[in-house]
């Protein structure tokens, strides 16, 4: 893809419809893996990976983050690990709660 002014994609709107197409393909895949009944743990991993792929497509192309400076990309992506840390910090307590039942 050619890059225009300010590192932005140049050459019309085609890239957005390509991303749109792949987002729909991934959504259909998500519904597909639910309907074929794979083991629970595998299902969880597949769904999270597919969701992260969709998230990356939206952030990189629709929100143009791919075309921003690297320092800016780090600045907005780094805080998101707090969310991941929060989840893994609380899971042990949730399992304790389950055991106390």
């Amino acid at each position, binding site marked *: 893809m050619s890059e225009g002014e300010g590192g932005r994609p140049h050459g019309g709107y085609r890239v957005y419809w390509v991303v749109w197409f792949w987002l729909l393909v991934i959504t259909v895949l998500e519904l597909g893996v639910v309907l074929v009944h794979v083991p629970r743990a595998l299902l969880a991993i597949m769904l999270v990976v597919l969701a992260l792929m969709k998230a990356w497509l939206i952030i990189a192309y629709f929100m143009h983050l791919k075309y*921003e400076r690297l320092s*800016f990309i780090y600045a907005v992506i780094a805080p998101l690990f*707090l*969310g991941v840390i929060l989840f893994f910090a609380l899971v042990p307590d949730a399992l304790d709660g389950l055991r106390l039942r």
Partner: protein
Amino acid sequence: MTSAEATQEQGLRSEWGGGQSPFAVGWPKLMMWLFLVQDTLTFAGLLTAYGFVRIAAGRWPVQEEIFNLYLVGFMSFVLICSSATMAVAVAASRVGDRPRALRYILYTVLGGLVFLGCQVYEWSHFIHEGARLFSNPWGVPLFSATFFIITGFHGAHVTAGVIYLLVTAVRHQRREIQPESVEIAGLYWHFVDLVWVFIFVLLYLL
């Protein structure tokens, strides 16, 4: 210190030493990104609480029997389409194609309204079946609490986005705002789509 290191340090100092824009984005856009980062953490908190409740509950209703996955799939489809039309509107506004920008913002608004309509239907159906904030017929009281709070928060974001986009469309048409403002409105709208990606997977499918 080698000369390469010295050059690099000098480069960093001149970039971060003040009087520059090290991120190379305007401040309105930077502020919107910062807002979206903190809003992401709000939803991360909600979804983590949902995960906690669900793991600690030990059992959970089978979502496929309660939710209409075709309706939810359609809602995802609508939101993805509206995100794509918004991306086109932003690009059109950047090259100065105002009529196209207006048309595509309005398509986006239409998508948002269809999504909200589906959500109203889903909620009223759910309530009609006996679901309340802290009680429901499916055995796990917090099941409906997580559903109403998380989809409610998201729906409120969609509603705010629809209003935001309408204001943006009018002001852009009157030439009161620059293309950058359309892009910022677009960032917000894509974020709403982004959150739905995770709600769709974690609340409905998993």
